[in-house]
């Protein structure tokens, strides 16, 4: 545990200083958030305890929210923190407390084998995306309107995403009713 904490601290310093060296303060922030995202995911992958895995997942969600901030999407970052960290994480931790801990469930050999197979596939995807990225601008576009205002206009515009927003609203309703139905049926089946 101490060794992994030391390794994490070393990686953190390396990522922040490398980012600061190549791109200044923005690069340092990017290094911090990227490391938080990937390291949190790795903790969730390798931890046998679901509660500790959920803590790693929380770090990953916060890191992604930070990357959203760096990309100029402050509303999405706020939604990620509120919905992901505030809502989903509480639910997952609650379920982790209900679940029984099975230490034999984690198998390092299986995890490493899947990592070795999946990593070249991801490298291929990044390579293809980088080729696609050549067609995009190298500098982000400037816009005077705030991101929340732009999102609101796009979502409520009948010619753009108003119909999709209605579909998502119906989906939310259906899922909440279904979750309530599951819980109610479980309560009704319980004796006494």
């Amino acid at each position: 545990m101490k060794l992994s904490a030391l390794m994490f601290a070393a990686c953190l310093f390396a990522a922040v200083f490398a980012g600061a060296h190549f791109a200044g303060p923005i690069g340092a922030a990017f290094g911090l958030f990227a490391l938080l995202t990937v390291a949190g995911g790795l903790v969730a992958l390798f931890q046998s305890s679901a509660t500790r895995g959920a803590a790693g997942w929380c770090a990953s969600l916060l890191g992604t929210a930070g990357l959203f901030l760096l990309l100029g999407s402050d509303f999405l970052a706020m939604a990620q923190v509120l919905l992901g960290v505030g809502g989903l994480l509480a639910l997952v931790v609650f379920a982790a407390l209900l679940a029984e801990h099975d230490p034999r469930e984690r198998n390092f050999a299986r995890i490493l084998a899947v990592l070795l197979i999946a990593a070249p596939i991801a490298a291929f995807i990044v390579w293809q995306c980088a080729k696609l990225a050549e067609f995009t601008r190298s500098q982000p576009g400037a816009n005077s309107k705030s991101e929340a205002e732009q999102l609101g206009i796009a979502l409520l515009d009948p010619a753009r995403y108003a119909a999709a927003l209605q579909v998502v609203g119906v989906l939310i309703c259906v899922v909440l009713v279904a979750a309530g139905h599951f819980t109610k049926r479980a309560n009704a089946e319980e004796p006494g």
Partner: protein
Amino acid sequence: MGLAAYLCVSAALFVIGLCCILARKGSLHVLIGLVMILNAASLNFVAFARFQSEPQDGRVFALFVLVVGALEVVLALAIFAQTKRAERS
């Protein structure tokens, strides 16, 4: 930072999520892996949107992905809780 840096982080997150789904057997770890993959997709949407002239499209899709991911977790946990109750009784 350029687009490629964000794509690399997104790909790493995608691989970790995929490994969580394929290599772990616990239902909670599989669920966490699924949400990580959705997060990687959202990050890609927002990163590509940032470097386009119309950034709203990618952000709207990322918002929808976020909502659908939350709904998926809610439904999966309801099923999980019911399964646990059925196992106990």
